[in-house]
């Protein structure tokens, strides 16, 4: 990891499966992380309180309590980035975790590369929120201070809502945003269930920003969960 500077980041793995913890430890230590483990939710919370980690990998299926509960408890006092490990067929769990403050999720079974990329995004997000007024992704260039959007150097006209939507994505680049989160941020809390607005505006945005709107590369769909703006390389 060339990007990280200073001491090794501490990662806390909260998972009840010994084998998975062992595997994660091997992967992460190889990438320069300092790994701590907790087998239960309670153990995880205690550990996080006593030795605040830089990153938490949290499994949703824990023996003593639900992962989402662990997350809510953590969020009462900590903004530590949390990446959730979940099983594919429970989209509603993922959404619940994200809405409860998880930074991202990785579906089991997962590839090591995918997990590491997500961890990097979650970690960087906390580092780079304030500075970096100009966002670049492929041919796209968004200047949040000047409120301009360019594709291949060309100005793109966006409506107010389209721009708010894009700004939200840029602010959370690389991170998945749930339908509810987006609707609440862009349209307001009363629009949380009005998914059709989101569908229409996402289609508009793709139309204006993507090179091939039929095969979007910038804004990708997370089925049943939400959308994600790809992270800059």
């Amino acid at each position, binding site marked *: 990891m060339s990007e990280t500077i200073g001491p090794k980041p501490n990662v806390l793995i909260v998972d009840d499966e010994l084998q998975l913890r062992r595997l994660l430890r091997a992967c992460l230590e190889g990438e320069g992380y300092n790994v701590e483990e907790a087998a239960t939710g309670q153990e995880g919370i205690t550990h996080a309180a006593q030795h605040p980690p830089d990153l938490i990998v949290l499994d949703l299926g824990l023996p003593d309590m639900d992962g989402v509960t662990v997350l809510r408890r953590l969020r009462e006092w900590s903004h530590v980035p949390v990446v959730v490990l979940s099983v*594919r*067929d429970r*989209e*509603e769990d993922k959404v619940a975790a994200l809405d409860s403050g998880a930074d991202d999720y990785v579906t089991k*079974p997962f590839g090591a590369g995918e997990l590491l990329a997500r961890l990097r995004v979650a970690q960087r997000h906390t580092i780079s929120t304030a500075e970096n007024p100009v966002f670049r992704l492929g041919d796209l260039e968004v200047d949040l201070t000047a*409120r301009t959007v360019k594709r291949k150097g060309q100005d793109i*006209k*966006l*409506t*107010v*809502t389209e*721009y708010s939507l894009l700004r939200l994505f840029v602010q959370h680049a690389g991170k998945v945003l749930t339908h509810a989160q987006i609707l609440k941020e862009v349209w307001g809390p009363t629009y949380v269930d*009005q*998914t*059709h*607005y989101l*569908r*229409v*505006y*996402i*289609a508009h945005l793709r139309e204006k920003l993507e090179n091939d709107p*039929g*095969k*979007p590369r910038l804004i990708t*769909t997370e*089925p*049943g969960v939400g959308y994600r703006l790809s992270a800059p390389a």
Partner: protein
Amino acid sequence: MTDPERPNPDVLLAALQKEEQRQTRGKLKVFFGMAPGVGKTYAMLEAARREIAAGRQVTIGYLQTHGRKETDALAEGLPSIPRLTVEYRGMTLSEMDLDAILARRPSLVLVDEFAHTNAPGMRHPKRYQDVLELLDAGIDVFTTLNVQHVESRAESVRQITGATIRETIPDTALDGAEFELVDLPPEELRARLAAGKVYIPDSAQAAQSNFFRPGNLSALREIALRFAAEHVGHDVLAYRQAQGIADPWKSGQRLLVGLSSSPTSASLLRWARRLASELQAPWLAVYVELPRPLSGPEQERLNRHVALARELGAQVIHTTDDDVTRAILRVAREQNATQIIVGKPTGWRAIEMIRGGSLLNRLIRESGNIDIHAVRAEGEAPMLRTPPPLQFTPAMAKSYGIALAVVAGVTGVNVLLQRWTGYQTLALVYLLSVVMLAMFVARGPTLLAATLTAFVWDFLFVPPVFTFRIESSTDLLFFLTYFVIALAMGQLAARLRAQQAAERRREQHATAMYLLTRELAQATDFADLLAISIREVGKAAQAEVALSMPDEFQGGSLTPYFASTWALSEKEQSVAAWAYRHRQPAGRSTDTLPSAEGVHLPLIAAERTVGILSVKPHGGAQLASGDRDLLEAFVRQIAIVIDRQRLRDAEQRAKMVEESERLSKTLLNSISHEIRTPIAAINTAASALSAARNSPAATPPWKMIDEIQEATRRLNILVGNLLNMTRLETGHVKPKLDWCDVADLVQVTVKDIEKDLARHPVSAEIEPGLPLVRMDFVLMQQVLTNLLFNAAVHTPPGTSVKLEAHANNNALELVVSDNGPGLPTEALPYIFDKFYRAPSAPAGGTGLGLAIVKGFVEAQGGNVKAENQPTGGAKFTILLPLFKPPPVNAEPAL
């Protein structure tokens, strides 16, 4: 034509069944004698001693030694069951303890006096019924019996000795019994009698001298010998039939005997049974229900006779007609009877002449080729048709009151009328009133009115008035004619009404039967069936009804169905249980526990007892013979329907079990294959990698790693499919319907499986401007993924797959098609069944993919179909309903 030398298979089968029954059932041995005192009990005890010597467990159930020393000595030391003492009207009676014997279950039990009548309140009225129950329980029984107590011989004995026999047993109770004749020459018996060695009850002292006359004894001995010989003959006959020896009787006879409430009917029945037995012929007893309703005692006597006929082995037929002769001949022809047995007429010839000739004369004239036996039948009491004792019910009082009122009223009218008309015309007015009256009231009041009006007319209007005297011969003639006409009119009208009532009753029965059948046919399930049965029987029999069935969950004990209208008391339940165990009616107006409140009828269908129908007429009334017949018809019908429903249920259960067995087998087969293959791949690859660790010179193991990844992907898909299927099966698929962009759905799906479908180019065609569709994005992604995978698996590499989406009327049409070999035609109907795999399907795959497609699509209110394209290749079409999405306001650009 059948070969007469070959044994008839049916006969052989019957013999086998009889043999089987014999093996499970206890054996009955009867020590049979001509009269009391021949030494039956002694012989029985001797035989019992021999059995004990042979090592058998013998118990005395009931023994009556009458204090004779030799007999007592012989009985000493034998284990015996204590008798039950019963208090009855201040007398202490001791009876055999049936339940104690059943509980002890000895292998052989001695039961003296087969024909004994039990004290009231015992389970059975007669001891022979106790014995039958013991035999049913598999216990062998030794018993004693005198010939005079055999039903079919009782009449002969009475005629010979003049002694009335009260305790008789039906001949059928002796079927299959072994006979040991205890014989003693009459002189020796008389000698024993003289020596006081024969016990005669005090009450019979007077009759004894008559009974034991040498001539009588010889005759009794003859009857006993013949009866015993006849029973041996039965066995010989059965043997001969089974062995194919030509039937020496070849009688082909069928007897028919008239059955009525007349007291002479019983002896007629016994006579018929004797004849039938001698002829080896089946016999029918026919009861003709006349329009005239029976009185209480008559009804009771009729029920008794019907029961007697059944006991004697007759098939009882019930018919309704107003002409006995016609009815008997009709039934005789229907049933192919060859001989008819009727009683010799003893009534007033004159009345019979009026009725169109005596029964016998008409029978002889109209019977054609059927033989007629006229038998001198004697009643228990020598009287004809006992007039019913006058019971004065309020309804009767009312109709007599009406009759009197009408007479008084019409007399008043006549007093007024006589100023204008002659007194003879007034008789016509009276006649009119009598006829009118007959239409509304019963025969009694009508006849009263007819008689009264005749005399009132005579007294008040016929000169000389205020006397009963009639002077002119015209008046006398007029009076007599009036009297006869009024009586006849009254009689005719009453008969007409009775006939109508009978007709109505018949009609009601037919209607009830029809309704029952119809209602039962409409029952949707078992519970419904039972409820309908209870309701219909209750309506038809005017009774409270309970239906009890063996409860599978309580060890098969009989449990009343909750919807029963009669809550069975514990006692009634035990009666029902008895009826169930013994497959015989029990309770009121039957031979078993007649003191019960209602009658309990077994529901027997196809040799199985499915339950018990218990019926208690409202207000404790007696069941009329017609009602009883209807009830029996109901019971048969209900039993058949219940049994059929049971079979249907069982069949369905068996089918379900079979289906689930097939499924779990397929599941195990395919799952074990599907899981083990990738595991094997992972294992092999991992062990290869492990080996490479020790020899770093080996080629880089990328291939192995690829294999592991491929295997885990495959496992993951399998687990996903299994989870989805489980969710579908357990009803946990609750689609989250949301407005979705079809283009997005298609692109996400295709992108996700691009790698897996590398060898099958996928092209997507989406109609531009498609509206948003309400669907569950995740489920639909799975649906499309499964369809695309399916196409990839079943077509050769290089086959292109097309995914199209367009609006079609009010539906979204999603089409996944390929230009591969297409679907096998025979597979089309089953293609969406879970675990179904087309015969030509390549290895791998669980047969779950398409089942999940169907389940998910239908969960969202859509449907899916599979077909082959005319141009070749398979085509799957999904239709989802299209709704108008809510508007999204456009807004200007910045």
